[in-house]
């Protein structure tokens, strides 16, 4: 992204490429830069980086840029790029992989709220086997408040609380809010799957 001169390090690019291809299950080498994905990407205008650019970053071994750009964080997983790709490359799955690799490399997310949202959701499911909207949203708000407080963004915290309180109240008014917690009986199976998932990602 930042490079203006093509600077190819085959040893670095090979390693990155192999990991991304293995984990995402996508053949990045098939990309011939037709940019149909870019034309259909709903967040491309905002991210600057489009799916074709992201693929090129990985091919060139630009690891820092590939793990740290707005597309990785703002991708809405609509799968338009993948269904339109003449070579069947699902870039949404590449962004998922890069997001996970970015977390494993302890890189601070470019959009902390997006990271906190998906982390909270997945953690919440590990507690009860189901997603409980109240628990999940509570965890999410705690996470982002902590992150904003670390940077002293008090106004952002107040705005966020006001916004969510407003949404919460109208959810309540329209009987869309559920207070009771749903929990499954086979929670031990879920715990085992989470344990295996952790081992698997640590193995990379």
């Amino acid at each position, binding site marked *: 992204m930042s490079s203006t001169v093509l600077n190819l390090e085959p040893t670095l690019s090979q390693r990155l490429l192999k990991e991304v291809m293995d984990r*995402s299950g996508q053949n990045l080498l098939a990309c011939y830069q037709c940019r149909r994905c870019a034309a259909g990407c*709903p*967040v491309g205008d*905002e991210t600057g980086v489009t799916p074709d650019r992201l693929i090129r970053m990985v091919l060139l071994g630009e690891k820092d840029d590939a793990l740290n750009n707005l597309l990785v964080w*703002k991708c*809405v*997983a*609509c*799968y*338009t790029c*993948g*269904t339109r790709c003449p070579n*069947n490359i*699902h870039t*949404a*799955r590449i962004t*998922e*992989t890069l*997001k*996970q690799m970015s977390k494993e490399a302890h890189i601070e997310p470019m*959009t902390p*709220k*997006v990271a*906190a*949202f*998906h*982390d909270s*959701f*997945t953690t919440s*499911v590990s507690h009860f*086997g*189901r*997603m*409980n*909207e109240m628990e999940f*949203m509570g965890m*999410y708000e705690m996470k982002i408040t902590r992150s904003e407080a670390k940077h002293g963004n008090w106004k952002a915290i107040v705005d966020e609380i006001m*916004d*969510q309180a407003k*949404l919460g109240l*109208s*959810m309540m008014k*329209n*009987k*869309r*809010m*559920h207070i009771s917690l*749903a929990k*499954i*009986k*086979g929670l031990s*199976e*879920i715990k*085992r*799957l*989470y344990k*295996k*998932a952790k081992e*698997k*990602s640590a193995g990379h």
Partner: protein
Amino acid sequence: MEIAYYPGCTLHASSEFYDIQSRLVLGQLGVELKEIDDWNCCGATSASKTNEFLAVALPARNLGIADASGFSEMLIPCSSCYSRLLVSQKMLTDNSELRYKINAELTKKVEGKIKIKSILEVLVSKVRSGEIAEKTTKKLEGLKPACYYGCLLTRFPYDLDVPDSVENPQGMEIVCKTLGAEPLDWSYKTDCCGASASVNDTDQALVLMSMIMKDAIGRGANCFVTTCPMCQLNLDAYQDKVRDKYGIQNRLPVYFITELLGVAMGMSPKKLQIDRHFVDAIGLFKELKLL
């Protein structure tokens, strides 16, 4: 007939009325929904963004339960759950090593037998058999819905047999026409509304919703109809924000397809719980003298 049923978390929480309506409407069409035992969350978009193993393993436990249920088909109304279970099933059919690894942790193993159906597939089959025309008493004249499919009903992050056209699906239009409504041709029916971003990247979601709203209004729609609870909640709960920010005057109720069917079958709004919308959804039915 009886069919296995996976409601998913949302249909037990913020979109509970979609669960109620699905049971009522399909019941009327002779399809009894049998909720599978002790199902878990499918992981939705978040699991796939957090951990690639969980994204397959969480739906897999439900597939195992469904395979052991004795039913041959399972209905999943939520587009996100539908997509995750369908993708997981196909991945596990193609990858025996992964299937073995996941099955090792499951009491009920994935066999890959259960046929997963979206609510539209079931409804379209009931149009073809003539049962919908037979069971509906009211023509929904004057209702001009923009049929909104969103992302997850026709686009999958894996090679699958897609049940409808990827770019221009018609299932919802087929159902709406049978009910006497006039669905419109429009350009944003499979565009993303940004539901997974509305809480954490609100501005992004608002941009996407504004384009969807503008096109629907420009074509003369007086409501949206959808089958996805994520899209429904997003377009409904955030509609005022979109209107304020983008200077849009019209308000469009966002119906579940089951609400149109229920009203056409003569069910009361109370029974269908149509009062659980953010944007008033009963007024338009009354205005068109359908209630």
